[in-house]
């Protein structure tokens, strides 16, 4: 039984309008020269085109916001015991039902990468978990690759459904939507779109065309071992990071960067413990209270970023990279630093030097 459904652009827009009444609808929205995943209201949905654009920043914030309050604390004086304070703690762990529309397969896979540290293992993150459970991911199969795309290097392709609940593909006259997960199929059933099993060939042709548009692939199977073996090669990392400005654009745009910092803001009597994105490209990331910084130089920070994505994470999670090849870090780097180049260089020269 095929899960293909066909929708004309108007029908799809109509469905999104309906969804926006019951859900927080996050989809690409132009803001200045950038395109960001922002909430859409029903009355704003007049044209589907902006929602199909490629977003400048990843949709990571839908589940892991740039900043969220973990605990709100207040303290008031106790009238009966003047020496003591009554403290209250509120831990809001709410998640609005959300539809994340218009991300690409790399964006959806980003959530799979985040799920492993946040939801697997001994401790689960309740904040992340609640939002993740409340989010339905409707992904657009990529129509074509950009020059910075390299999803096929890291085990994916432009029509990958991993991490998506619904995958839709543009075909002649509209879109074919395919329910991937139970959550996605259930939501898709509410749309009332016609069955489109007959369009399977058209969908496959679109997917094949997108795959053909990708630049040549590079085999990264040995990357975890080779990048790890590079660890002590300070000259290599120094050379590769000469032009790095040590800003955090790459990490904040990344769909898989998962590190955060926790700070208390406000006053001790009325404050918030917040979690906000951190960046390993910042010297403060590893600055110790003693003043010692194990990663004071930028090459060590870059080594950590590359190492985490292509070596440490795969070694912890069965070989899966914590990079989905979306190319945002490459496209938005102020000095055109290319992560693909560093990874291939780290893998390539290594063997020769060992001789």
């Amino acid at each position: 039984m095929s899960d293909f459904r066909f929708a004309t652009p108007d029908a799809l827009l109509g469905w999104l309008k309906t969804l926006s009444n019951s859900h927080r609808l996050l989809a690409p929205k132009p803001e200045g020269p950038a395109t960001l995943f922002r909430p859409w209201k029903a009355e704003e949905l007049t044209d589907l085109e902006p929602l199909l654009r490629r977003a400048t920043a990843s949709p990571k914030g839908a589940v892991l916001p740039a900043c969220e309050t973990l605990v709100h604390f207040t303290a008031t004086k106790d009238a009966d015991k003047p020496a003591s304070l009554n403290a209250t703690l509120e831990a809001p762990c709410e998640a609005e039902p959300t539809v994340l529309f218009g991300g690409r397969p790399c964006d959806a896979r980003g959530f799979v990468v985040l799920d492993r540290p946040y939801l697997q293992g001994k401790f689960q993150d309740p904040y992340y978990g609640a939002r993740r459970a409340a989010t339905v991911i409707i992904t657009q199969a990529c129509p074509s690759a950009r020059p910075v795309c390299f999803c096929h290097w890291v085990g994916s392709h432009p029509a990958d459904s991993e991490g998506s609940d619904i995958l839709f593909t543009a075909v002649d006259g509209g879109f074919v939507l395919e329910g991937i997960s139970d959550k996605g199929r259930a939501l898709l059933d509410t749309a009332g779109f016609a069955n489109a099993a007959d369009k399977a060939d058209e969908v496959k042709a679109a997917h094949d065309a997108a795959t053909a548009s990708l630049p040549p692939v590079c085999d990264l199977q040995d990357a975890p071992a080779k990048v790890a073996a590079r660890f002590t090669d300070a000259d290599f990392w120094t050379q590769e990071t000469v032009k790095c400005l040590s800003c955090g654009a790459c990490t904040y745009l990344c769909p898989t960067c998962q590190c955060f910092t926790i700070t208390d803001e406000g006053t001790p009597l009325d404050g918030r413990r917040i979690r906000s994105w951190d960046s390993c490209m910042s010297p403060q990331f590893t600055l110790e209270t003693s003043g010692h910084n194990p990663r004071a130089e930028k090459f060590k920070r870059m080594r950590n970023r590359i190492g985490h994505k292509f070596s440490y994470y795969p070694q912890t999670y069965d070989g899966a990279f914590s990079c989905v090849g979306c190319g945002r870090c490459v496209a938005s780097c102020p000095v055109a630093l290319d992560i693909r180049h560093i990874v291939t260089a780290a893998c390539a020269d290594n063997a020769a030097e060992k001789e």
Partner: protein
Amino acid sequence: MSVLTGKELRIVGFLCNWCSYGGADTAGTARASQPTDLRIIRVPCSGRVNPLFVLKALINGADGVLVSGCHPRDCHYSSGNFYARRRLELLKEYLPIIGINPDRFEYTWVSASEGQRWKNVVTTFTDRIHKLGPAPKWKDVTPRYDLPTELLDFIRPLGCGENPFLPDLKQAIKDALATPPATESGDDRPLEGVLGWKRGYDPLKAEPVFMRTPEEVDELIWGPFNVHNLANYLPQYKGRKIGIVVKSCDSKAVVELLAENLIRREDVVIFGMGCNGTVSEGRIRAKLPAEVRDLPIEAVQGKGSTMTLTVAGKQYEASMQDIAQDKCRHCPRPNGFINDIFVGAEVANAQPPADGRSAALRFLDAMSLEERMSFWKGQMERCIRCYACRSACPMCVCRDHCVSDSRDPQWLTQEDDVTQKLFFQLIHAQHLAGRCTGCGECQRACPMGIPVFALKQQFGRMIGKIFGYAAGVDPKATPPLLTYKVEEANIKERDLS
């Protein structure tokens, strides 16, 4: 709850311990009645008042800010208030660009014996703030997302063609790497390498490169994609002798770094050529039809003022008028402000334009204060706080020790809030006042395309207006905020009494 809740406004006062604070005491001792809206913070000198104190108060919702110090020539530390006068006057001129009414901020002078004068100052200022009413709150402002679209006319021809002197430049660099060139300083250490550009992963992208070998020099490019200001890297090489290839605008940053003693003259050999302008990648892509905009650019060919791009086997043309960076459009001096080795023919200088305002400043000038607040709210919302603006700035020399990263004192919270994001930009702009050489790298580096350069341009404009100074021109000059005059030509005495 205080009986005055709702009637009082929140006015912050920064008072010098030696005079105005004493003046307030004198007024109190004399039982002079005065309004109670003012919350006084005592400081050791008006020179201690960092303009960021004022900005932070205003951004976080203060309805007014008053700074009061000793009369000029009467400073306890002899010159603190002279420095304060320059900074605070500049700040007052700056405030309108972010949508804050400059009347909400005032500075004045009251001595310890002038109780009556203090009373008058407080009363006058408080009345003024009450007339203005409570300050608009950022959270209540409706954001607007439109950006300046005006493309300014060139004051001299810009081009994207091949520079015929590039082989000569490469040869000059190779020679310099082989034998240290004779420079004024007489320093004969060999060059460790030379900073330049090479082609990036895409024909529209150049990338910085540190050339050490002749083979690396062969990859050097010079043309419309050399957007990066390589002076950014110079301070990290302090004490090591290197070369740098500069566009004219980049050379201003080198001048400023020299003026501030952040690099040493003998450590750097400067290679320059006449510049025909650089382009904006975003503008080029915007000129392409939507269906090919995201596709790989196969080839780029520049001839005169026309760039021909090959995408998916088809050719598209773009004119420099549509794709040149804003800063290049008004650049009158294309041949560098400092050069050790200048290669090739000079490009003709041009007359600076009568109206030298950038497109962004024209756009902002045409707005009301409320509209500017809306504008900055809309723009700063999308800031991801990656601080690429800071990292790309050649004059941001604190690098790993930026005050905005400090938790004690805590200038910023980690919260994802427009006021925090904008305040970071104000820290950046304020620390560049009188130092910014106008390369615009902050804005070019921004992945979100936020027009943060305008915040620095406003300071630049006001520095020119008040002090007749431009940064990055003369390595011997003293930046105006690091000095003072007893009688300031363009600063009127501010009297609230």
